[in-house]
């Protein structure tokens, strides 16, 4: 079988306190795929993203672009996967935005001109051209999210690994983020509770439960499986429920209608 862009085999990890965060995760992600990692709190979504770039010492095999994750390949693999953390205040650690965006390329050993060009291009691609001299603490929530994305885009990664990228965003900022990601990303993995965004941005969903893969398949099929969602402590996205209600008003109308009514 040819190498997938990302291949995980029996990946396991337990935190020092003994909590087993990953219990034998096996996955293959091809170039160009858009994958949503979904699951309840503590399912292991964030830990799996950390394991992908060797930030937690997981057992098992992780291969990225044909390279097996090891001390020798860490640098190269971190160039291939751009990991964006859940809290932008963790991601943006430099006093000025331009320095933050330049941090990755500079650590890659690129020359000053190339670093400056990549910084300008990454900021422009997320709609933050002219924000380079701004301090992260002066940015809005949406701007911080976009800036976080720029900090990895400047490294030109093959895969974007995004941890809860839309958490805390208002609808307009969320919409902008979706548009930016569509414009700049090719392959991405989204660890998220925002199932509407998962449905919108990903054609494949991997449901994690207690550190193991509970389901893996087309996002729409998984997210519309009410029994599976219920069992995993999630719920079918409203857009699917409303769609179902419109399609079969006689059978599903009263249920979807009553749920919508409760939300209103």
């Amino acid at each position, binding site marked *: 079988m040819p190498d997938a862009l990302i291949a995980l085999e029996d990946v396991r990890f337990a935190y020092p306190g003994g909590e087993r965060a990953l219990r034998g995760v096996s996955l293959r992600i091809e170039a160009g795929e858009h994958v949503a990692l979904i699951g309840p709190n503590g399912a292991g979504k964030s830990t799996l993203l*950390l394991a992908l*770039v060797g*930030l937690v010492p997981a057992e098992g095999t992780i291969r990225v672009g044909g390279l097996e994750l090891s001390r020798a390949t860490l*640098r190269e693999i*971190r*160039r291939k996967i751009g*990991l964006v*953390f859940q*809290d932008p*205040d*963790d*991601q*943006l*650690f*430099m*006093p*000025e935005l331009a*320095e933050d965006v*330049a*941090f*990755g390329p*500079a*650590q*890659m*050993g690129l020359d*000053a001109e190339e*670093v400056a060009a990549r910084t300008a291009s990454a900021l422009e691609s997320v709609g933050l051209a002219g924000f380079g*001299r701004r*301090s*992260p*603490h002066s940015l809005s929530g949406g701007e911080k999210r976009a800036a976080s994305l720029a*900090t*990895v885009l400047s*490294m030109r990664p093959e895969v974007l690994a995004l941890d809860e990228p839309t958490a805390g965003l208002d609808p307009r900022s969320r919409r902008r983020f979706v548009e930016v990601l569509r414009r700049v990303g090719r392959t991405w993995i989204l660890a998220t509770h925002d199932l509407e965004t998962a449905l919108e941005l990903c054609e494949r969903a991997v449901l994690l439960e207690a550190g193991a893969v509970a389901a893996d398949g087309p996002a729409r099929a998984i997210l519309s499986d009410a029994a599976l969602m219920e069992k995993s402590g999630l719920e079918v996205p409203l857009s699917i429920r409303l769609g179902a209600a419109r399609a079969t008003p006689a059978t599903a109308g009263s249920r979807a209608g009553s749920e919508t009514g409760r939300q209103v």
Partner: protein
Amino acid sequence: MHHASIDRYASLESPVHRLDARAKLVAVLVCTAAAVSEPRHEVAGLLPYLVPPAALILASGVPVSFILKRLLVISPFALSVAALNPIFETWPVRVGLGPWETTVRAGWVTGGSILLKFLVSALALLLLATTTRLSRLAGAMSSLGVPRALAMQVALLYRFVFLVVDEFGRAHRAASARAVGSKGLAPAAAAALAGLFARALRRAERVTQAMTARGFDGSFAGASAARLRAADVLFVAAALALSAGLRLRGLWLEG
């Protein structure tokens, strides 16, 4: 949250702002060193040291009220030290201003000298801090021989002090919302501080992960420092000449 950061006027456009951070840092260090090395009873000889930083602040366009407020914030320690001097140094000394002469306690003279030295140092530092972005300052420290890791600490401290302040503000508001009057706030503040420490540690861990994910392996790959312009060199030369001139004048008058 909004923060009244010290470098909020650092992006203004003025000849002072355009000076290289290294040139300003060297000038401030030289000027401060010359002033504080004046004898402890020197008062009149310290007045000329105030002119350059005051003139440059005016030229920078940074509001004088902003500088004065910062001066007030940092002055209590110097004021109390100066105020104590007349209590301990009670012997009389003759002081003169032009044709007028009078006798005062020695402590008033040394206290005045301390205040003036504080003013020179504080104005020079405020000039530097308000007209230079802190990241540039950290870079200047690094290129002037301060270990890069230490300069980086300054930059990171500047970035994260706001987050710590925000977190403390949130914890304080949460405690205040549930406290009746001020009773019970002290223990809550202590608990909030402990929580803040724990959160700061967790954040440090996550920031390290974020840095590592972007290729950080313990050494920083910094951009090479820009070349100094003629204006920067002239500025440093003028600061050196002025400070040396004032100090030599003092030594000559003493001698």
